[in-house]
């Protein structure tokens, strides 16, 4: 009896390792340019730095994407759309934050429209430094993410599910209401 449980556990572990290997080597990122750091993404994607050699490619819909890039500052209006997009993505999902604006507000620390700390609202796996991060830094950040996925360290999505109430409370405190009905005041 014990023998079969052990066997099953081994099989599960084996599959887990295989799936992590494939996840780490084929990352689809959601094409959502939320801020100015996105201007260096085309450079990272095209011929000079060629993101595709890491197995990364752009994906148009959140449901099929693995990683959401927060490219820079987030105004409240974008934060709301980011939360929509993040919650639509299927697990496992990862979040990469660019620049100091996601860390502590950066140069917009005193702005009435830009949030200061993104980790209050969404769980972040990797921060990339620089204003804006150069393509080398972007590539390095993605390399880190791949390593973290392989080592089972990119667990932001689990954290989000476990602490959903806390995140939701913060989101509502900033946004007022999460779903907005009448964007155009018609």
């Amino acid at each position, binding site marked *: 009896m014990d023998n079969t449980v052990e066997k099953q556990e081994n099989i599960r572990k084996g599959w887990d390792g295989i799936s992590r290997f494939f996840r780490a080597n084929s990352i689809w990122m959601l094409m959502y340019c939320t801020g100015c750091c996105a201007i260096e993404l085309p450079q990272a994607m095209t011929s000079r730095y060629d993101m595709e050699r890491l197995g990364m490619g752009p994906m148009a819909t959140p449901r099929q994407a693995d990683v959401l890039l927060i490219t820079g500052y987030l105004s*409240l*209006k974008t934060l*709301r759309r980011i939360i929509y997009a993040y919650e639509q993505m299927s697990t496992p999902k990862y979040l990469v934050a660019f620049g100091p604006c996601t*860390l*502590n*507000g950066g140069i917009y*620390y*005193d*702005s*009435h*429209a*830009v*949030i*200061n*700390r993104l980790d*209050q609202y969404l769980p972040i796996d990797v921060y990339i430094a620089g204003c804006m991060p150069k393509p080398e830094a972007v590539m390095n950040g993605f390399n880190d993410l791949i390593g973290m996925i392989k080592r089972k360290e990119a667990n932001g999505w689990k954290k989000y599910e476990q602490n959903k109430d806390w995140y939701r409370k*913060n989101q509502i*405190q*900033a*946004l*007022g*209401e999460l779903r*907005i009905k009448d*964007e*155009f*005041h018609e």
Partner: protein
Amino acid sequence: MNKDIKNLVADIKSRFELVGEDYPKDDQAALDFNSRDIHSVLAYVKSQGFRQLSILSCVDWIKDNQFQLVYIVFNWETGIRLQVRTRIDRSNPKFTTVTSIYPGAKYYERDVHEFFGVEFEGNPDSYKQLFLENWDDMPPLRKDFDSKAYSDRKYPVREYAADFSKAGDKK
């Protein structure tokens, strides 16, 4: 100051009551009018070749309890720019739309309404929010609005063990 501007200002002076004038650049004149004249001034300068409204903006002169509306118009043939300015009461900021003269003003008026709270009668859309969403305070570009205090109140700030922003001052 070039000759075209001199002639133009003299022409405008003969038709409207000029409250103040200033020439910040060689090809630019800033003219102040009473608020009741603004529409006829704009209609007149438009007929004189100032076919483009570059921007409509607002300045909050809180000490005088006034808002200043600035219409910047441009003449593409001569390269002359005019600032047509007027001051309105700050405690009850109301003005009439200029969209019948410059249709492009529609969204600039909406912008000024959102950030300063000036109401434009005759522009039905100017009351709607445009850039902000669920805004819960006074219009943010007014001088008595403190964006730092608002930001600190609403968005949590990251705490650091040491205050690195003051590090340079000690030396």
